[in-house]
């Protein structure tokens, strides 16, 4: 199955819509059952999560727990949910074979909360997809932020 850039773009745009609309259970359906989601620390983005402090390093169990948390009204940092909007561009397929595909894309995620200045998270998505009979599934989702430090971005309290 040869996957084109436009297939990957369709996937990423759909993923973005689910995340921006807080349809987190539907987003979960896009992931393989051993998916990982990681956000490296800003000052050591090339370090491995096993020997470097990350901002987020979730295995699938932690991803699911994160969604349980975010759906709770006790996830105070995201209650009420912030408004988020992501723009995705510069999509490139880096490699693919019969079973896997890796792609990279640029993003901006804007986050709005009441009486707060907009926060702009800028960076790159590094997706590794698994080619399954049901279509592409995300096996690895690495989100690299360009900011030198989080500073005024504060927390990464939503799914970036």
């Amino acid at each position, binding site marked *: 199955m040869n996957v084109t850039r436009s297939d990957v773009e369709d996937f990423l745009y759909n993923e973005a819509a689910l995340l921006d609309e807080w349809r987190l259970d539907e987003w979960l359906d896009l992931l393989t059952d051993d998916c990982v989601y990681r956000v490296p620390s800003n000052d050591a983005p090339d370090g491995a999560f096993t020997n470097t402090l990350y901002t987020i390093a979730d295995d699938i169990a932690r991803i699911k727990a994160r969604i349980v948390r975010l759906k709770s009204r006790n996830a105070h940092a995201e209650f009420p949910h912030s408004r988020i909007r992501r723009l995705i561009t510069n999509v490139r397929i880096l490699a693919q074979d019969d079973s896997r595909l890796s792609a990279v894309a640029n993003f901006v995620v804007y986050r709005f909360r009441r009486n707060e200045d907009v926060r702009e998270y800028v960076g790159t998505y590094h997706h590794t997809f698994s080619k399954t009979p049901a279509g592409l599934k995300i096996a690895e989702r690495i989100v690299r932020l360009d900011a030198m430090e989080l*500073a005024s971005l504060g927390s990464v309290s939503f799914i970036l």
Partner: protein
Amino acid sequence: MSARTYVIDDPERMTFKVNRRTLVDEHVLEEERRRIFDKCWVYLGHDSELHAPGDFRTRIVCGRPILFCKGTDGSVRALLNSCRHRAALVCREAAGNAKRHVCFYHGWVYDADGNLAIVPGKESYPPTFDQSKFGLTPVPRLESYRDFWFVNFDADAMPLVDYLAGAKEYIDLVVDQSPSGRMELIQGTQEYDIAANWKLLVENSFDDYHLLSTHATWLKYIKDAGVEIQAPAAGHLLPSHGVGKDLGNGHAVIDNVNFRGRPVARWIPIYGEAAKPEIDAIRTELVQRLGEERAARVADTNRNLVVFPNLVINDGSSVTIRSFHPLAPNRMRVTAWALGPKEESASARARRLDSFLTFYGPGGFATPDDVEALECVQAGLGTFREIEWSELSRGINKTGEQLNTDELHLRAFWRQWNKHMSGDSQPHIKAAAAE
């Protein structure tokens, strides 16, 4: 209010209140910079951040750009990172190794020890210009305790080892996790702002009263993951017993029986079955080295330590060092690191980092809710003219031990803060009389 009525501390009337103006006022912050941050020992960095001669890190401490570096003789230095010519930052990189530091503005060159090595066009300076007097200026005082380096901008300050008072015992408990007595900073820094007054993070860092309500989702997470959460004992709010302690000089701690797992060394299901033998081995090493009692102290308690004014060492789900500086009355910059034993195995290190992220940091399951709580407090402080006082009296009527959910440890911080700010050894008496 009179300039000095910041805190009402009246044990007889069982009253302890903090004036909310202390959390919003620019003049208070200016006074804090002068009376606290320029007088107290303030954390700079960890010994393990510098290995070879010439290694350096730059950071901002108490508003000053500092070059934290290792000289050619191997000694650790803290130099003001400002050119002696016209003040420009000399070193602009976050970290690295350099034989010399060049101020790019006019090209003055300093060696790794901070001596001024080259002055372009030196012949135009008058004969009174003495190049040897223009090295990078050292911070007035630089001292360390168990690899934690602190600076003090007051040349007459008491020695660090005296300043730390009872906090030393709690630093020792952290360092005792390492068989060699050497901990190291793990790469990867979490550096983020909170739109709140810096003292609110002091309070929050060892305030266990907020755990159940603020961190309900974290508790649910560890419960769902199979961690056993017992019902609180009589008179308690939390699943295990814990106490608050005043350690002197404004330092204080909460010291809790662990229920949430510890990389050194208390297994919980989140670590996975495969981790059990290694955790057992770590525990055995602790007992052999320290004896049963001390090993239990290290392995079976969580401790959140505040070193006055702005260093937090939390030894809980993992070890985190947190230092924070005010940017404005309603804003601070937090820098947080993870710390682990130098000789830790790759698997134990990975487990420590994973455990860190279950609770701590900007993407953790707990810290973002703390940040939200502090920012909500700051927003609420818009009412400080109408609602003048915050209430910190939990446990004040108790004799003897106070719980981690009481506020003795918060009062210890505020008393020291008030002492500095009032320039008075017994400001509470004056404050109570004024009331």
